[in-house]
Structure formats: C-alpha cells, structure tokens
C-alpha cells in the first residue's frame, strides 16, 4: 500500500517538476532579483551595486511623465476599447445570424493573435506623411499632424486591444438567459430599460474582465507609444527599456518595474472585487 502511494506521489512530482522548475527559475527568482536590485545602487559603470536603500523608490517622480501618460492612457484606452467593443459583442452574441456567429467571432480573434508590431506598423503607414495627411492635403487641409500624438497612441491602443475587449463581453452576453429578456418585455419594460436592467447588468462581469485585462496589458505597453507616439508619448515600458538598455541604471529600472507590478496587482484585485460583487465571478477563456 505504502509502495503504491509512494509511486503515485512520485509520478505526480515527476509530472509537475519541469513546470515548477521553469516557474521558479524564470519567474520567481527573476522577480526576487529585481526586488533586491530595486533597493540597490547604480554601479559607476552602469549595472548594479549592492546596497540597502529606498533612494530608487524616492526617485520615482523623476519618471513622473511616463507614469502620468501610462496612468491616463491605460484607463482611457481601455474605456475607448469598451465603447467600441460593446456594440460589436452585443451584435455578435444576440443579433448576428447563428451560422455567421462563429465566423465573425474568428475574424475578431485572428487579429489579436497576429503580430502587434506588424499591425501597429500599418498605422504608421496610414497616419504618416504619405497616408491620410497626403489625402487631406489633396482636399486642401494642409499640415495636419496625426502621427506622434497622444491621439495616434489612443487609436493604436483601440486597434491593438479591441479583440481582447470584445471576447469576454461576448462570452457573458452569449451565456445570458434569453428568457429573462422575454420576461422583462412581458412585464412591460421598454427595450431600453430591459437593456439597462437585464442585458447590461448581466454582462458587467464580462465588461470588468475585458477592462482589467486591457488595462493591465496597457500598463506594460511599449510598442504602440514608441511607434505611434514617436518618443513624445512616453509610457512606463519606454522608461524601462531606456533604463535597462540605454542608461544602464538597473536599480532605478527595477524600482519602476516593481512599482508597475504593484499597480497591476492593485488593478487586478480591485477588478476581482468588483466582479465578485457584480455576481458570481466567472472565468473567461481567452482563446
């Protein structure tokens, strides 16, 4: 008996060992490393020098612009995504013909899984001097600057993350019990109050999932502000690349990274609280 129990546990350990090793060596240890680095000092020639100081954290305001841009554009971007995504998810889940539904859904998911670099590059092309501005000059509107503006970054955000917002909202609307909509109408509610009181209300967990996912990914965004913001709209991600690869101030970069993770965790916890309160928290498959 004892032998078979041992064998059972041994097999379990064997199955979990590679994944555990991977998670520890490439997730837990690196995180511990940057936590240690964040209380250290920059070595004179760049890199890290051992110390125990909170100076790096006190220095965070030096990158206030990056934090400010990220903290404003991440929620605003997620909100813009939401405004565009909701009608699409609603149409797909409740209005689209049954046989088209899966095809349309696949068409939404495909861009999310293709290269964000390539898709953002497409917008550089359209917003750049030879794209829309050239067209506008043709009809007499000259010198309109589209690229390298916060607006371009916002557009890139909506474009890049829209699928990720549509999907969870679609899932929550698709699971909606249609009899509730009939019941609401039978009880004399107007279409608008049915929408607000039943449909929208019951899709709020999906909205929360989408919103927090997009928010968290945007907090670490680097490509969109770099390509469409042209070095004018700095995000935290840009500050990190600069600190680690250019100025080699690793301790300060680590402090920023730890702060970024802390903000993400807070966003996740708040989102979780809200969606638990909104009704049973549901898991949403992303693919």
């Amino acid at each position, binding site marked *: 008996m004892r032998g078979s129990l041992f064998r059972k546990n041994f097999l379990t350990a*064997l199955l979990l060992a590679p994944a555990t090793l991977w998670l520890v060596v*490439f997730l837990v240890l690196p995180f511990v490393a940057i936590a240690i680095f964040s209380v250290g000092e920059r070595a004179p020639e760049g890199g890290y020098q051992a110390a125990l100081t909170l100076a790096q954290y006190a220095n965070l305001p030096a990158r206030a612009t990056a934090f400010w841009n990220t903290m404003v554009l991440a929620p605003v971007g997620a909100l813009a995504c939401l405004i565009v995504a909701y009608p699409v998810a609603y149409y797909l889940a409740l209005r689209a013909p049954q046989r088209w539904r899966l095809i349309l859904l696949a068409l939404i998911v495909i861009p999310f899984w293709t290269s964000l670099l390539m898709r953002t590059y497409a917008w550089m092309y359209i917003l750049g001097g030879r794209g829309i501005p050239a067209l506008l000059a043709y009809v007499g509107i000259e010198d309109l600057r589209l690229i390298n503006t916060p607006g371009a970054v916002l557009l890139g955000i909506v474009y890049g993350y829209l699928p990720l917002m549509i999907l969870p909202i679609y899932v929550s609307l698709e699971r909606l019990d249609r009899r509730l909509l009939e019941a609401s109408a039978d009880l004399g509610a107007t279409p608008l109050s049915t929408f607000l009181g039943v449909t929208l209300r019951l899709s709020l967990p999906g909205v929360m999932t989408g919103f927090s996912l997009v928010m968290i990914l945007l907090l670490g965004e680097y490509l969109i502000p770099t390509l469409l913001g042209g070095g004018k709209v700095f995000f935290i991600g840009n500050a990190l690349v600069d600190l680690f690869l250019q100025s080699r101030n690793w301790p300060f970069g680590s402090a920023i990274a730890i702060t970024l*993770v802390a903000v993400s965790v807070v966003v996740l916890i708040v989102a979780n609280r809200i969606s638990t309160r909104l009704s049973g928290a549901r898991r949403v498959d992303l693919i």
Partner: protein
Amino acid sequence: MRAFVVAVFAFLYLPIALVVLFSFNAGQHASEFTGFSAQWYGKALSNPFLVEALKNSLFIATTSALLAAVCGTAAALGLQRVGARMRALFDALLGAAIVVPGVVIGISTLVALVQLFAVVNPFLASLWPTDQPPRLALGYGSIIAAHGLFSMALVTMIVGTRLGSLDRNLVEASSDLYATPLTTFRSIVLPQIMPAMIAGFLLAFTFSFDDFIIAFFVAGAQTTLPIYVFASIRRGVTPEINAVATIVLAASVLLVLLAQSQLGRRKPSR
C-alpha cells in the same frame, strides 16, 4: 448597429489589407501604387540579415513551443492529482506568468541571468582544464526559456480545461476492463487532449514568433525577426518591410486558424 459592426470590421482589417496591397507595389514609394510586382518579396528573401533573423525566429519558436507543449501538458496532468491548496498556488504562478507584462518578464529575466552568469562563468573557468572554458551568455537559450514561460502557462491552462471536461466514465471503464494505467492514458486520455496540446503548441509558436519585447531584452547578440523588423521600421518605412509583414501576418493567421480548428474538435477522429 449593423453598420457600426461593419465599420469596426473595416477598422480591424483595412490597415492589414493596405500593408498587403503595398507589399505588391511595383514602385519604390510607399504612397503611390504603380502596379503589381513581387519584387519586394524577392528583395526581402535575398537579404541575408533578414533571412538569418527569420531562421532564428523559426528555431526559437519551434523549440520553445515544443518544450512548452510537453511541460505544460505534464503539469496539467500532474495538477489533476494534487490537493486544492497546491493547485491554487500553481494556478496563481501560472496566472502571474500570463499577466505580468512582457517588459517586466524581459527585464527580470535579463537581470537574473546576467547575475547568474557572473557567478557561474568564473566557476566554470576555474574548473576547466584549458584556457577556453565554455561561457554561458544571453542568446537562444534565454529567449527560448523566457518565451516558454508564458507558453507553458498557456498550454497548462488549455489542456487543463480539456482535462476538466474529460469523460471520467471512460477512464473508469478502461481500468475496469483491466487496461494498465499506461494503456488507459494512451488510448483514452491522450487522444482527447491531443487537440488541446496541438492548439497550445500552435498558439505558443505564434506568440514566440511574434514577440518583440521579451526577446528585445534577453536576446543578447541574437536577432529575431520582430527585432530586425523593429530596427528597420525605426530607420524608415520600406516596401521590403511590407513584404515581411505580409508573410508574418499570413503565417500567423494560418497558425491561429489551425489552432482554432483543433480547439473546436469535439471528438478525435481515430
């Protein structure tokens, strides 16, 4: 509302269509379309730096996705056999691997590996009998491992979901009929989770092939295709990049469709 939805689909696909169209442009300029030609594909594929980057990306994506598919599936199977507390801890770590921003994964891996190499390399040198000791450095290995982290978490979740919906009666019936655990696994469990494994592999491959930010930090002296493309975009838009973008987009669409069709399979055809 239908008009709005049509507009959103146009918004999603027009930029992509434009890049594809201009990749076939006969002219030099990025703005004027002067007729069809495949010349930029020829130019792109005869650029040795680009081909080298493409080969690197293919090698890294294949290796990390394979490792992720195997380790992730093993983990999903192992998680079926542990208690709730252990499972919750594992799920939290897997969730972290997916949710932590790529920038943070990139820099923390960089920092940890550089520190590790600083300890291990002198140690290796002291053990080595000749003057040319092996040196650990950033490169293929670090990119494969960092990509594999996210991918493995993804595979574990996909296969785990599939295992959750597995018909337990079949497993019990199989052992009632005196099949060994290995036979039960091979003929009942494996065929049912195979589509999820394949889908996980394909998505992992796509992720690794497309990833820029993690590789940017841990690549060391190596170049992957997204790193090459990023560098050339910063030098200025060229039709050659349109051709590369089209190839990459077409390849990822194909892989995602394959992955979706695998996930959609309810019953394995055997």
